């Protein structure tokens, strides 16, 4: 069993809602519980997939881990150190940033349009004290090679001169140039053409092999997650409902939501007969969270206890499921 790198203990992130309508419904402040009591462990050198539909809180969780946002409650431990309150401590935060980096979804927005590829990748290095031109050049060229770009081609180009796939590779190079220990990738391939995606996914695998970097791969596309990740965690309405190895989750899902999710993924094979688990209703409004288990209104197996109590993540043969049935 690999060592655990990141401990997420009962993390909560509430967003106060300012609209007057919400105030009408509840006395006092209404909250959107984007991340509600999440506990998770991320192991060294693994690629953990965090999957779920839009609004489930996965991006928020990613930002919390990257310390781009502060949790309302709970503790995050990175390599043993409690980092939850680090946002206010500038020097420690800067050190942390060397070790934990985030890759964002939109290749078209992640790069400053006024920075050349060289500028973009050298910025993290300059911030952290590496400023001599030859040193910068050396590290940038090495990194470009790692991500599969030729520095002759792209070094002095601006983002608008590059394709989506190339831009994403530059973003990855920028994130990796400080050789972080942990990378959080938030939907890194969702906005890319399909024929380009595989290259980026391979790159993540390659990075893990070459740098030993741990990766949290956030995506709404379970099929993509399956092709890259060792373990998968499924989120629904701010909570983690199931965690397991890739094969366990995909082939033998235990939580009803996971089952519905997997069975709903279309299969590119005209001869495959997919039987889907029909799921009624839609994701409820974030302000009107169902009582008890959040999933119970849409669950076929819902029982009385599901309406009143929230299930906790329990170990069931090596993986963890939050369900009473």
């Amino acid at each position, binding site marked *: 069993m690999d060592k655990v790198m990141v401990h997420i203990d009962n993390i909560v992130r509430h967003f106060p809602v300012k609209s007057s309508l919400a105030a009408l419904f509840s006395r006092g402040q209404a909250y959107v519980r984007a991340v509600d009591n999440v506990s998770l462990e991320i192991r060294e050198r693994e690629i953990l997939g965090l999957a779920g539909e839009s609004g489930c809180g996965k991006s928020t969780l990613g930002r919390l881990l*990257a310390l*781009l946002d502060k949790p309302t409650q709970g503790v995050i431990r990175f390599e043993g150190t409690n980092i939850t309150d680090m946002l206010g401590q500038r020097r420690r*935060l*800067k050190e942390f*940033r*060397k070790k934990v*980096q*985030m890759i*964002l*979804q*939109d290749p*078209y*927005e*992640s*790069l*400053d*349009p*006024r920075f050349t590829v060289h500028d973009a990748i050298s*910025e*993290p290095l300059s*911030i*952290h004290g590496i400023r001599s031109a030859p040193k910068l050049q050396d590290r940038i060229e090495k990194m470009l090679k790692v991500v599969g770009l030729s520095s002759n081609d792209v070094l002095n180009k*601006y983002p*608008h*001169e590059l394709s989506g796939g190339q831009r994403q590779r530059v*973003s990855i190079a*920028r994130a990796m140039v*400080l050789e972080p220990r942990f990378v959080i990738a938030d939907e890194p391939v969702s906005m890319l053409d399909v024929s380009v995606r595989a290259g980026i996914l391979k790159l993540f695998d390659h990075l893990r092999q070459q740098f030993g970097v741990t990766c949290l791969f956030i995506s709404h596309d379970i099929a993509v997650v399956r092709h890259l990740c060792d373990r998968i965690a499924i989120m629904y309405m701010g909570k983690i409902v199931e965690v397991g190895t890739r094969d366990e989750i995909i082939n033998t899902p235990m939580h009803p939501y996971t089952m519905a999710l997997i069975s709903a993924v279309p299969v590119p094979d005209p001869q495959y007969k997919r039987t889907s688990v029909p799921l009624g209703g839609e994701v409820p409004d974030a302000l009107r969270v169902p009582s008890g288990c959040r999933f119970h209104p849409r669950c076929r197996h819902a029982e009385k206890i599901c309406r009143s109590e929230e299930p906790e993540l329990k170990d069931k043969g090596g993986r963890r499921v939050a369900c009473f049935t």
Partner: protein
Amino acid sequence: MNLTRKGRFIHELAKQRMAMTGFFVVCLFFLIAVFLQVLPVPDPFALSLHPFHLPSGEHWMGTDNLGRDLFSRVLWGTRASLLVGVLSAGLSGVTGIIIGGIAGYYGGWVDDLLSRITDVFLVMPIFFLLILIVSLFGSHIFFVIFSIGLVTWPRNARIMRAQALALKKRAYVTAAIGSGASSFRVLFLHVVPNGVSPVIAYTVILIGQAVLVEAGLSFLGLGDPNVISWGQLIRSGQQSFASAWWISFFPGLMLLVMVSAVNFFGDGLSVVLNPRMMRR
């Protein structure tokens, strides 16, 4: 055609004919102001024996009440106008960018405080405030520049603040923060450069306004008496306007041409710098 951003920008700008005309006129004025000493014009201070002389072959714009060649005086006035125009607009722009950028980016109480201050300045009547300042503190030309700059920055600050508010949510800003960049760095290396275009466009137009304000002040006798300026010239020709119209006319004409040219250019610039151009 795979033009660089600069290339595209210049290409689009060149298509705006009025703006380019304005630009060339301003350049012309600029060259005059810079190379004034080597230009073959008569000494603007030289008194002659032909006061109130009509425009003629010898004196292209005639002479003023003391027989000084008006043409050369008008050309010398270019210096004062451009100096005041460019420097005060520049001061206004820089102040506005800094204050607006900080307010928009940091938000919270910083924004509240700076916005209140901006609002206060915004409602002040510029001209009267300037009259007050100059009357109290003197009319040295740098004072005039300073005052104009100080009073006109709020509009620029508002523009920059709006830009900063929008830009701080961009992914590349998040990425910079994630790399460990200090707020200062993020603000002045990422947010400001990407949001500064409308400020630049407005600042160019401000140049024209500053020139007018300076002319106004000089016309009222509040400008720097040691510097030849168009307002001053117009004032000097006021009394004798009925008979020697050219003394006020030519400086006035120059003023009109300069300010129009600057405005045309500023207009064209703001069309081209429209955010749509910046995105891919």
